[in-house]
């Protein structure tokens, strides 16, 4: 029976400040700071830790009743002072919450006052402010808001350089490492923002680190304003909300906007762009990766052809995965997201023009109960998305292939590749293995060869 549905049930999204905290974690010596209640910071820490298995300190201005009545200015300032004293950060990334946004705190104004009031104290950290009210958008919007705010605060006009800015979107630490490797092999100077490849997936500590090592240094971000180009992944990310869009507006740095490079076609597009921008041919290593991937497609094609999939997650990931699945002959019968950019369908259509003939259905702003209702009708062979689809996977006996964020019920989500030929190879292997495992389990014979 179909029920009327006003409430969100088992949300397929998280709130705005979470994305901002993760992005700020990708700046060197930066402490993320939430201007709101203590709970926001604690819940978000818990959620991130369960995926990344790394300590993540997020400070909070810890609102009280008085702050809600008289404004959070006093608490924010004390909080900044305490964080400065205890963590000695180079940067504090302040993100707002629904509470501070609703009472209307003028955070930029408070930060200005703070700098004036404490200018003779200990070294003043760089203060970045991102507006991330939880009643707008979802975690991915907070992520982009923080990246844009960082660039806006730090980037300066300078002597033109060979530098390329890369804004990779909310990808895994392993993806970030791969992107750095690619640029290094191209011998192309890179500004990657954010870069939490080490802060969210680092080594053991011999001593306590207030802030874990790694991240993009603020001094490097300053130079983003004199780069020769920006590359930005994420097809639903609009220039008006993005870091590359800001740099284009403010400094005339051309913005090259790509889908997340998943699958051969989109990876080719990315590598071609790098060839154009750097003037170098792609290194042989990546030709090899690509050749192995094409070969794997051939070896595995029969397992995956016309398999029906329900895809869910952040919109950009869903678009990119739809393109990839289409090129290997799989059918994403439903592409779903808790996000609501209004662009999801259009972007998918651009990459997969034959989407209607293929029977690809697109839904924005849905939750897991909506997706489950669809699954009952669509009968997919499996689900692809984050861990939170496990409930419906188990209930309806549909296998779940985990990717993206969060992965709370498997080990190593932070080390999973998604991007480029390497990431696609890993995803393809996993998809084929999911099919093989399913067949093997269903077989009464118990083949040891599949």
């Amino acid at each position, binding site marked *: 029976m179909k*029920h*009327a549905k*006003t*409430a*969100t*049930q*088992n*949300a397929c999204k*998280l*709130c*705005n400040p*979470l994305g901002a905290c993760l992005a700020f974690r990708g700046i060197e010596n930066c402490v993320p700071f939430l201007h*709101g*209640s*203590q*709970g*926001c*910071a*604690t*819940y978000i*820490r*818990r959620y991130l*830790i369960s995926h990344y*298995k*790394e*300590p*993540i*300190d*997020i*400070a*909070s201005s*810890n*609102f*009280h*009743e008085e*702050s*809600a009545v008289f404004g959070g200015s006093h608490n924010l300032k*004390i*909080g900044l*002072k*305490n964080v400065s*004293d*205890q*963590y000695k950060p180079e940067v504090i990334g302040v993100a707002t*919450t*629904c*509470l501070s946004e*609703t*009472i209307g705190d003028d955070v930029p104004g408070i930060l200005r006052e703070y700098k004036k009031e404490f200018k003779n104290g200990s070294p003043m950290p760089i203060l970045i402010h991102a507006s991330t009210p*939880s*009643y707008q958008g*979802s975690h991915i919007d907070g992520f982009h808001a923080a990246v844009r705010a960082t660039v806006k605060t730090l980037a300066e006009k300078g002597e033109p350089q060979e530098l390329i800015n890369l804004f990779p979107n909310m990808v895994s630490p392993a993806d970030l490492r791969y992107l750095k490797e690619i640029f290094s092999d191209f011998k192309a100077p890179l500004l990657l923002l954010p870069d939490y490849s080490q802060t969210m997936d680092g*080594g*053991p*500590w*011999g*001593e*306590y680190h207030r802030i874990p090592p790694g991240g993009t240094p603020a001094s490097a971000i300053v130079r983003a304003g004199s780069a020769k180009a920006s590359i930005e992944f994420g097809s639903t990310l609009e220039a008006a909300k993005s870091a590359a869009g800001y740099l284009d507006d403010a400094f005339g740095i051309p913005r090259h906007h790509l889908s997340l490079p998943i699958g051969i076609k989109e990876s080719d597009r990315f590598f071609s762009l790098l060839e154009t921008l750097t003037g170098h041919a792609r290194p042989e290593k990546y030709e090899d990766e690509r050749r192995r991937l094409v070969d794997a497609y051939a070896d595995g094609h029969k397992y995956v052809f016309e398999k029906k999939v329900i895809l869910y997650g952040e919109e950009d990931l869903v678009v990119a995965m739809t393109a990839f699945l289409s090129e290997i002959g799989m059918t994403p019968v439903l592409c779903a997201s808790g996000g609501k950019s209004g662009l999801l369908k259009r972007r998918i259509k651009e990459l997969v023009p034959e989407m209607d003939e293929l029977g690809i259905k697109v839904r924005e702003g849905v939750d897991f109960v909506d997706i489950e209702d669809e699954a009952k009708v669509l009968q997919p062979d499996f689900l692809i998305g984050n861990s*939170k689809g496990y*409930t419906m996977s188990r209930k309806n006996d549909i296998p779940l292939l985990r990717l993206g964020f969060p992965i709370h019920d498997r080990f190593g989500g932070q080390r999973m590749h998604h991007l480029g030929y390497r990431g696609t190879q890993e995803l393809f292997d996993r998809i084929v293995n999911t099919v093989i495992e399913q067949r093997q389990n269903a077989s009464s014979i118990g083949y040891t060869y599949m």
Partner: protein
Amino acid sequence: MEQITILEGRQKQIFEKKKGVAQPDIACDTSSLSGSVSQRACVFCGSRVVLYPIADAIHVVHGPIGCAAYTWDIRGAVSSGPELHRLSFSTDLQEMDVIYGGEKKLYHSLIELIEQYKPKAAFIYSTCIVGLIGDDIDAVCKKVAKESGIPVLPVHSEGFKGTKKDGYKAACHALMKLIGTGSTEEISKYSINILGEFNLAGEAWIIRKYYEKMGIEVVATLTGDGRIDAVRRAHGATLNVVQCSGSMTWLAKEMEAKYGIPYIRVSYFGIEDMSKSLYDVAKYFPDRPDIMEAAKAVVSEEVKSLYPSLQKFKKALTGKKAAIYVGGAFKTFSLIKALRSIGMSVVLAGSQTGDKNDYARLKEMCDEGTVIVDDSNPVELSKFILEKEADLLIGGVKERPIAFKLGIGFCDHNHERKIPLAGFEGMYNFALEVYQSVMSPVWQFAPRKGGIL
């Protein structure tokens, strides 16, 4: 190594037990310092943890999506029947709702959810902005209760209006509205309620089994494997047995005032405290010596099988040092005793929400040199773990990566655990988990132990 300093304004919440030094009272019961990375949560979190295990009610979070998303199915509180508590419902307030108010959205959400899921009751949690935008959730709840015929209970848990403890109180307040509305017919005189036991990994079932073996009737467990009908008749019990000092003492006091039901405080962790919690209940019914006999029989039977199995762990763990940082102080007491029973000493003990009496008792219990902290943070915890050369940290998810980064063992003693640690069998699991983590050979590679960075 870099000197780690303690924030000004935090010094009074930290204490080291030393002979011949004045012993000031530890400051506690305060709200967290702005900008210190407290391991605490908020008022909403307090309410949510207390009511979460009630499995035949719907739990609707009124606010933007985060609060509901982060509390969706995050606890190991299991149910023997319905599982509505494992669903996450939110009014998912948007900007327009913030401007024009969210009452209508809440009303429609409730009517639809009640129609769809047929719960026995609904708990409505207000989050930070609900009061600010002027929503009258009491009025909406009243209206929906009338139309749906089930209790619809507002839980005033705006995150910033106090600490986690105030959230416990708001939850208990909602429970008080249910208690007293059911029939107490046929409830035995030898009966109890189990308060503050959340049935993580089935722990309430273990405890209940012991009490039932003693001939005690358990009227309601609040709130583990909870059912609305059981809560409604909780006032028919003779005694309240309260675990988890932080969350449920308020309810016990209210029930004492309103229904004349006395309460005792217990803990189910470790052999000593587990046994005591059975004896203390038995002592309450002196007219029935057979109950005490049965309690002794339960303890002796359980300990007989448990004790030998602990010796392997004790042999390996003797001399190892532990740090404890958990939510409630009462749990800390039990853990100190439990650790001692497997040969370990405690070098750091703390809690998020202990009160003055708790800390006084902690001071008494601890060895010389033990550091005691209230509402600590990662920087402090790390400082003391390193200074005191702890081999193990006991805490929750947020503390786990600190331990692993620093290269020491960890035991999860929080709401997410999937293995029961309460009761006698829980003590075995606890010792096993501590043993597996502390004795693992992987720490040889930790820099702290001379491993290669």
